[in-house]
C-alpha cells in the first residue's frame, strides 16, 4: 500500500498546492527542457529551490526513493556509459575500460539533470490533484485543432484511477501462478504468455464494466467544467519560474 501512496497527490495548502494547475503544468513543461541544458551553477540554484519546495509537499521521501530504486539503476547505467565512452584523460582504468575525466563530469551533470527533472515531476504530482492535471491538459490542448481534448482529459483521469487496480490484478495473477510453481518453468516466453493473457483479459473486462458504470452515472463530454481561476499570486509564481528558467539556460556557457 505504501508504494501506491508514494507517487501520488498529497493533500495540503502550501503555495505549490494553491498554484493554478494550468500555470503549474505550463511551468513544468518549461522547466524540464531548461534543466536538460543547464550547467552546475544553475543546477545548484534549482536544487536549493526544489529542496525547499519538496519539504512542503508532504511526500514520504523514503518511500519515494524506494519506489524509484530502478530509476537509480538507470542513472548508474547513464553515468557509466558517459564516463566510459566520452573521450578525455583517463582517471580510472580497469583492463580495456577507462573512465575519463570529461566522461565522469558529463555523466554526473546528466544524472543531476535527470534527478532534478524527476523531482520536479514528483513535486508536481504531489501538489496537483489528478482532476486538476486533467483540466490543465484539456486547457493546454484546447487551442490545437483536431484533438478531442475533453476525451483525452477523461482518458488521463481514468488511467490515473485504474493503474493501481491493474497493477493489483497483475500482482494477484503473479501470486496465483507462483502458488502453482510457475517458477519451475524456465522458458520466459511460456511464462510471459501465461502471465500476460489473463492480465490482459481481466483488464479488458475491467474496461467493459467501467463503461457500464460510467453510463449508469450519465457520462457525457458536455458536463460541468472544473472551476479554475488564475489569481495575481499565480502570475507572480509563474514569473519566478520564468526567471529560474532563464538562470538555468544562461548557466550554460554555450548560451551566454
Amino acid at each position, binding site marked *: *500500500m505504501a508504494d*501506491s*501512496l508514494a507517487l*501520488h*497527490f498529497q*493533500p495540503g495548502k502550501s503555495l505549490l498546492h494553491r498554484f493554478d494547475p494550468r500555470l503549474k503544468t505550463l511551468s513544468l513543461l518549461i522547466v524540464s527542457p531548461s534543466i536538460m541544458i543547464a550547467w552546475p551553477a544553475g543546477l545548484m540554484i534549482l536544487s536549493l529551490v526544489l529542496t525547499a519546495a519538496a519539504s512542503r509537499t508532504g511526500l514520504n521521501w523514503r518511500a519515494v526513493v524506494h519506489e524509484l530504486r530502478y530509476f537509480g539503476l538507470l542513472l548508474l547505467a547513464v553515468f557509466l556509459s558517459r564516463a566510459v565512452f566520452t573521450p578525455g584523460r583517463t582517471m580510472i582504468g580497469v583492463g580495456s575500460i577507462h573512465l575519463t575525466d570529461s566522461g565522469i563530469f558529463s555523466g554526473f551533470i546528466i544524472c543531476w539533470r535527470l534527478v532534478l527533472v524527476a523531482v520536479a515531476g514528483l513535486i508536481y504530482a504531489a501538489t496537483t*490533484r*489528478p*482532476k486538476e492535471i486533467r483540466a490543465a491538459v484539456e486547457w493546454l490542448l484546447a487551442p490545437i485543432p483536431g484533438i478531442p481534448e475533453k476525451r483525452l482529459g477523461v482518458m488521463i*483521469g*481514468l488511467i*490515473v*484511477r485504474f493503474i*493501481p*487496480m491493474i497493477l493489483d490484478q497483475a500482482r494477484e495473477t503473479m501470486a496465483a501462478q507462483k502458488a502453482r510453481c510457475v517458477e519451475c518453468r524456465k522458458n520466459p516466453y511460456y511464462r510471459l504468455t501465461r502471465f500476460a493473457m489473463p492480465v490482459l483479459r481481466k483488464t479488458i473486462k*475491467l474496461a467493459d*464494466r*467501467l463503461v*457500464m*458504470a*460510467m*453510463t*449508469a*452515472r*450519465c*457520462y*457525457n463530454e*458536455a*458536463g*460541468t467544467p472544473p*472551476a479554475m481561476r488564475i489569481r495575481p499570486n499565480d502570475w507572480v509564481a509563474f514569473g519566478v519560474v520564468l526567471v529560474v528558467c532563464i538562470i538555468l539556460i544562461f548557466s550554460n556557457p554555450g548560451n551566454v
Partner: protein
Amino acid sequence: MNIIEVTDLSHRFVDGTQALAGINISIDRGEFVVVAGPNGSGKTTFFRHLNGLLHPGKGSVTIAGVPVHKDPVLARQRVGMVFQDADMQIVGETVYDDVVFGPENLGLGRDEIERRAVHALAAVGLSGLRDRRPHLLSQGEKRRLAVAGVLAMQSEVILFDEPFSNLDDSGVCQVLEQMLRLHKNNHTLLIATHDLEKVIYHADRLILINSGRIVQDGPPAVILPEVESHGVRMPCALRFEKEVSSWLIH
C-alpha cells in the same frame, strides 16, 4: 403511487441466452424490496433494465411514468445503481472527485455540485476522507462511496446488486445501516441478493427470480418457507423454527 412499472419485459443476449422472460412488476414509492435468486437467474440483467443500461427486446420499463427507452438519462438519474463490484463503479481519482462525477455529467452549477457532494459524503460518513484515493478505502468504505455517488445524483430509487459480496461483518453492518437510513429518508430500495440472511428482516417484499422469470412475489414471511425450492438458501433462524432477526443485532 408506483415509481417503477415493468410490463412483459424480456431480454435475450446476443449468444441466444434468454435472460429475462415476461417480467411484470410494479414497485411503490418507498418500498424496500429484496430480489433473490441463484447466480445467473437474471437479477443483474433486470436491474440494468431499470437503470436504462439495457433496452428491452420485448415489453417496457417505466420510471415515474416515463418509459426508460425514451429518456435513459432521466432513468439513470432517478434510479441509481450500486454495482456488485464497487471498484468498477468508482471512477474518480479521489473520494470527492468520484462523488461529483454524476452531478458534473448532469451539467449542474459548481455551487450545487459542492452542496450535493457535501451532503452525500456526510450521509455515508465519508466527509473526512474526501481527498483520499478510492483505491485505499476498505471494501465497506468503497461501497459507501458508491452509494454517495448515487445520492449526489438525487436518485429516488436505489438498486443494490449483491451489496454484501466480499464484505466482512463490519462492512456488511455498515452497508446495511446505510440502507436503513436511505429507506428512512423515503428512498425506494431494491436489493438483489442470493444471501437473504443479512437483509430480509428489514424488507417489505420479497421477489424470487429463477431462469429469468418471477416465480414468487409477496411478503417475506409468506415466501421464505419456499425459497429453497428456487435455489436460494433459507435464513438459518427459520431452519431452527425461530423468527428471523436483524443482522445488526449481535
